[in-house]
């Protein structure tokens, strides 16, 4: 599988939280190239199983929804007022090219008042989402014909920008890059004889309520689950313990994480000489692992992450080799699962 090609296709599809149909269709097609056992649920989670359904069953989840915006009001001059869907930072919005998903997709820009027309106090104040507007060129009556309150807006998709050293910059690498990692895992695992069943799930609504993680874990009812999601990569202006080096696979440790499942991942990395970094998270991890953990009487959960810089902007940056390494750590762990899996997960020693 060509990772760059998959990422280019996956990041090009819109899929703001709650409107994941289009990206879901693409993921479904990708899954079908690796397994016939593919299905969807009512809220749009896409699942693909590798191996016969048996115990233990492992659920691997990466979310396919993306942050975006929603129209709250159409002004009489045709400007669209907006609210964020998920954690959009209003400070990075002015100057953005966007697509407004009205009755048909419309190009738009998010403007800003020029600095010439602002006084000192105004230039010092950060933008608030309530103050921003999206310009699609139409006046009020024209805009109202095609655009409605509740319509979605995304950053305009562009092909990934290839920086030096295998660094890749693009919108929505959170978490589409990890959908590509799931595909690579499926490819690896198809070549191995497995003693378990693996369900891959591209989940919906992670960026807001975690709905996809909740209903996904409830319906699959796996014996263990791994959320794969991005974490923060090192960059100027952040503390070292808040971030991880861009070339390391990050495993999370904390109350959201099952220690033995973490150990299985660590063993897999060690066996393959893949350097890892531990991230400590004692509270909510902000991933699907948080919601999956408490379904169905409790599910052992772990998190595998590649570091990513500039999260929730249109220039999210990641290192492609780290993505390959993530796929190896996960596949290696799953490939090593044998009949002693219950013992391996037992916390009582």
């Amino acid at each position, binding site marked *: 599988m060509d990772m760059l090609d998959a990422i280019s296709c996956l990041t090009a599809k819109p899929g703001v*939280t*709650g*409107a994941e*149909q289009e990206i879901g269709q693409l993921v479904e097609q990708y899954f079908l190239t690796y397994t016939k056992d593919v299905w969807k*649920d*009512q*809220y*749009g989670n896409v699942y693909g199983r590798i191996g016969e359904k048996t115990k233990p069953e492992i659920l691997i989840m990466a979310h396919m929804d993306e942050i975006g915006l*929603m*129209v*709250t*009001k*159409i*002004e009489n001059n045709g400007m669209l*007022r907006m*609210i964020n*869907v998920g954690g959009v930072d209003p400070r990075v919005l002015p100057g953005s090219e966007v697509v407004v998903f009205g009755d048909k997709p419309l190009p738009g820009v998010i403007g800003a008042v020029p600095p010439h027309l602002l006084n000192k106090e105004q230039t010092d104040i950060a933008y608030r989402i*309530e103050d921003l507007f999206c310009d699609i060129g139409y006046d009020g009556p024209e805009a109202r014909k095609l655009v*409605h*309150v*509740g319509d979605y807006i995304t950053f305009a998709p562009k092909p990934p920008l290839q920086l030096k050293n295998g660094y890749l910059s693009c919108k929505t690498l959170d978490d589409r890059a990890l959908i590509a990692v799931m595909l690579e895992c499926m490819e690896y695992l198809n070549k191995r004889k497995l003693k378990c069943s693996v369900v891959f799930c591209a989940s919906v*609504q992670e960026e*807001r*309520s975690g*709905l996809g993680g*909740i*209903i996904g874990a*409830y*319906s699959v009812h796996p014996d263990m689950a791994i959320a794969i999601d991005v974490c923060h990569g090192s960059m100027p202006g952040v503390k070292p313990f808040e971030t991880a080096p861009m070339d390391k696979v990050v495993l999370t440790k904390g109350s959201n994480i099952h220690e033995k499942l973490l150990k299985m991942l660590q063993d897999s990395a060690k066996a393959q000489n893949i350097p890892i970094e531990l991230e400590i998270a004692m509270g909510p991890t902000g991933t699907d692992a948080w919601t999956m953990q408490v379904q169905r009487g409790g599910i052992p959960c772990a998190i595998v992450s590649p570091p990513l810089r500039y999260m929730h902007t249109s220039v999210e940056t990641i290192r492609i080799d780290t993505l390959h390494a993530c796929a190896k750590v996960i596949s290696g762990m799953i490939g090593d699962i044998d009949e002693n899996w219950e013992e391996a997960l037992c916390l009582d020693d």
Partner: protein
Amino acid sequence: MFKKMLIDILQAYGPSGNEHKTARILAEYMRPYCDELWVDVLGNLICHKKGISGKKIMLSAHMDQIGFIVVDIDENGFLRIANVGGILPPLSVAREVVFENGVRGVTYFETPETRDAKAVATVPNMYIDIGCTSREEAEEKVQIGDMCIFVSNYVDMGKRVASGAMDNRVCCAIIVEAMKEMQSSHDVYAVFTVQEEVGLRGAGVAAYAISPDLNINLDVTLTGDTPKTPAMSVALGKGPAIKMMDSSVIVPIAVRRFMIDCAEQADIPYQREVLRAGGTDTAAIQKTQKGILAGCISIPSRYVHTPVEVVDMDDVENTVKLIRVIVSKEQLPDTI
């Protein structure tokens, strides 16, 4: 007729976690229009009207209301309090409150400076004066853990009415009214939920027990039609607000489409709602079991979570009509 019932339901006592009196009143109103009704272990009132299609629709509205709970009684008989749900302290002082046993009191806050116009009430500096002069005297009337609500004055301004319990008793009354002349081939479950105001606690539990094919929840929403409000397109009197999104939930596009089609086919005015801050039971219902399809119809309301929540009776009437149309549809949405 409707107004008389509305007033009755508005005046029922029912802060979150203590809704049994409200449930009893609603049960009396609902009994003639359903085949069976019961109260579950959390206190949700579930009213079932049988159908023949094999499909289940759940209509829901929370019946709890915000209030205060007594955490301490001081030596001079003043009650110190904590909020039950999203109280707005600056707007909650100098108000009349009432306890379940009928004890009356008034709210105020610590004012170290005389006539300090800039002093701001917060929950910790607020207290309730029930007219007693000592702890002993106060303890005869009120115990720690007792809850009170705002005394609900009903302000009739003609087409528009105000009350402190409009959130969400107006929606409870709407469901009762809609059930009166309801035509549906589906099993209809009207559910009056508990503890919405303290974290959407009741609705998911009821949805788990019922496992409906579709839920339509009803709640109040804010408006953008008063002086200097954030950009929001909802206004009083322009029809039921069909929810797209709020802080807690995104309504599936197929469910939005279904509700909008129902309104358009029946010529019922409607508005699209995106609420910037606030949540509703729909969120908890969606997360139940393998995911339950759920949407929400909101009654536009001004000054929510104050003693003067205002709604428009035209919106109320149109919402009753819209619900009747929704439950009459044979074909329900089955995916997003």
